[in-house]
């Protein structure tokens, strides 16, 4: 009887899951099997991460099917039949078996460790002379991307002497919290060139995350971070703060627009003339605070 319940449990589970899935898929569905794997990497480093992800996934899936298969086999094969009251053999252990199933996992995890460490060296590799440097300022609850010319640090863009030399992209909170007419701030980067981001936070910890780059890095106050990436696919990619940063954390989105070198330079020129926003200084963190309705584009 217990067995029947178990069987029914499993059948009902599968049916319910498939049913729910089918209903969803037929009804509206923004789900696709595409979601079942990470995004196609849009950067060189992201591709490296994706490769190690795939390796871990294959090994993980193999372990999953092996062990779940063993469990399923055992509970079906060794279920107690009605009326069977005999004691099964009392097996306390088996040294050879136990050594094997300790040694093999050790070998697997050591291999994974070495592989992931090698990948890490690719992902974290840095060139001393990146062609593009962008200052990224995170604050509650938006982003600011600062493009300084050669020889000017992005932090100095606010100085009067540098007036008109820098391009700054400001983010704003959506008016009334309504996302429908809202565009998150866009970071423009040229394709196939190494871009260095200098990450800076003015208040709490944020995190710079672009799923298509398969990468994120926390932005801790007083601990500026420098990261580099090389985008290799033209397109617009979403990004978002992943480190919970307070009330309007959900609105800390941005976009990365990867474009050809020509388009990128043209965009930069267009932003430089006529002189852009009134001031390139970072807006005070309390600028867009209050209700999202209070904020408006500068």
């Amino acid at each position: 009887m217990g067995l029947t319940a178990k069987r029914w449990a499993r059948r009902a589970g599968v049916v319910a899951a498939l049913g729910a899935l089918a209903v969803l898929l037929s009804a509206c569905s923004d789900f696709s099997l595409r979601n079942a794997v990470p995004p196609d990497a849009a950067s060189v480093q992201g591709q490296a991460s994706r490769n190690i992800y795939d390796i871990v996934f294959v090994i993980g899936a193999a372990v999953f099917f092996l062990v779940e298969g063993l469990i399923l086999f055992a509970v079906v094969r060794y279920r107690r039949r009605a009326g069977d009251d005999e004691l099964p053999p009392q097996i306390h252990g088996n040294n050879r078996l136990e050594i094997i199933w300790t040694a093999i996992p050790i070998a697997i995890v050591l291999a994974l460790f070495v592989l992931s460490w090698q990948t890490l060296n690719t992902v974290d590799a840095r060139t001393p002379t990146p062609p593009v440097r962008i200052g990224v300022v995170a604050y509650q609850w938006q982003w600011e991307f600062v493009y300084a010319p050669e020889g000017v640090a992005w932090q100095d863009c606010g100085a009067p002497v540098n007036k008109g030399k820098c391009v700054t992209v400001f983010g704003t909170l959506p008016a009334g919290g309504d996302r429908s007419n809202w565009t998150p701030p866009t970071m423009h980067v040229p394709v196939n060139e190494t871009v260095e981001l200098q990450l800076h936070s003015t208040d709490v910890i944020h995190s710079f995350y672009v799923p298509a780059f398969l990468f994120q890095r926390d932005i801790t106050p007083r601990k500026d971070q420098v990261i580099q990436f090389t985008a290799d696919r033209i397109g617009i990619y979403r990004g978002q703060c992943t480190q919970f940063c307070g009330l309007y954390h959900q609105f800390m989105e941005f976009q990365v627009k990867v474009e050809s070198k020509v388009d990128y330079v043209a965009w930069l020129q267009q932003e430089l003339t006529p002189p852009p926003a009134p001031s390139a200084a970072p807006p005070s963190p309390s600028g867009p605070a209050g209700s999202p309705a209070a904020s408006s584009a500068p």
Partner: protein
Amino acid sequence: MATTALRPAATYRTGLYEWLTTTDHKKIGILYTFNSLILFLVGGIFALAVRTELAQPGLQFMTEATYNQMFTMHASVMIFWVVIPFLAGFGNYLVPLMIGAPDMAFPRINALSFWLLPLSAVIALMGFPLGGAAAEGWTSYSPLAQAKFSTGPGTDLWIVALTLVGTSSILGAINFLVTIFKMRAPGMTLFRMPVFVWTTMVTSVLVLMGTPVLTSALIMLYIDRNLGGSFFNTALAGGNAILWENVFWFYSHPAVYIMILPAMGIVSEVIPTFSRKPLFGYKAFVFATAGIGALGFSVWAHHMFTTGSVYLPFFSLMTFLIAVPTGVKMFNWVATLFRGKIRFTTAMLFAVGFLSLFLIGGINGAFLAAVPVDYQVHATYFIVAHIHYVLFGGSIMGIFAGLYYWWPKMFGRKLNEGLGKIHFVGIFIGMNLTFFPMHLLGISGMPRRIADYSATAGWNDLNLLATIGGFTIAAAMLPFLWNIFVTLRGGEPAGDDPWEGNTLEWATSSPPPPYNFDHLPPIRSERPVFDQRHANDAPALTAGH
């Protein structure tokens, strides 16, 4: 000792005064259980609030401020007032019984450990009527947790409450360790202790070494917030936000093992009983438990891979390595099933459910040990999926297995098996519906702890699915609560040993008398009651291979 004086009370005095003042480890264990159950419902309601809001894009039911309190208090309640005390409650009830002791070593301190729990829970939840509970996430990272960014009393109440919970845990851990080291019955050597006692012992060591560090962190945070300190306050000279992450995770990673090891212990009692076999590789299992405990203190920084402030290869290696003892345990359990005669009671269903779900929690944990993969999915819903496969698929399934298994011992009556099976099926389906889609949400880039998401991000359906799953879990709790109700009012009498158990708690009455035992069977192995039952069988049957 005056054993005769202890004899008469086969039944409990059940007056309210008796329950409020009891120092009997069994009653305290039952108090732990019910306190945790009530708070499980509270934490569950917070979770439903979160899932309801996330069912569709757009804010429908609450503001961001409310949402942030909901997910913060969901995690805080579930970790500090449900899973940890639930398992400590099992420890309280079972450890003295399993080692043949009359009570815990320090019964009055034991009562104090318990009463700190409802007190602290009330303090933490007081934030809601007093202008907002803590809303920084249960990790409470500075500077967000500093007074400048988190005004209101909620965060301070949370700090005070957690300090009290920590005190409760530390006192409990001391009590367990002294009880286990000093109060074992004659013949109960360390390597004859039930595995559950071993896991409680290792857990107690983790609590003893880890929890005080959390206490120190909380005190520093309190000083920052209220006395102008600058430990973690980056607005002041010398303040270091990463310091909080280090001291916090130094406790909070071992806390995951505090929450899973006793559940592993429960499963290691249930599976052998219902397979009618000894646990395969008892000693290996014990060493694996100790190994997890030891490695558990060297992996905390894997929560900080993305900070750019930790030495990655060391913590990555240690995190990978901790999969090995966990894997050993998994194979031990599966090998225990092999060639057994498996009875599918509700307790066994939950135990097998633990195996199949905790396995997923282990495998997706290995993803996170690989630093480049962690760069990708850290702080996304993948993490939420991972921790729920560990804490729900692992700890909570283990707790339910334990409840169905030891309820007859605690109350003398068996929980209804039919209702129990409905409960299991609902939990198993609901759990997977809720948490499996979160893997997919995570790898497609949905950050955790967001109150709302863009309708065009491709996350709508998976979120809806997870919400349906959440309500399935909630619905599955109803037969369980009904089951408790009908069983307390008159369930099937259990008898002393309803499952043919192996360990000493089955050698006394159900419920056991005060001070537990009139007579103990001889203890010659880790299964004294089994040995007793089969003393006259042919030796070939009980001998090992």
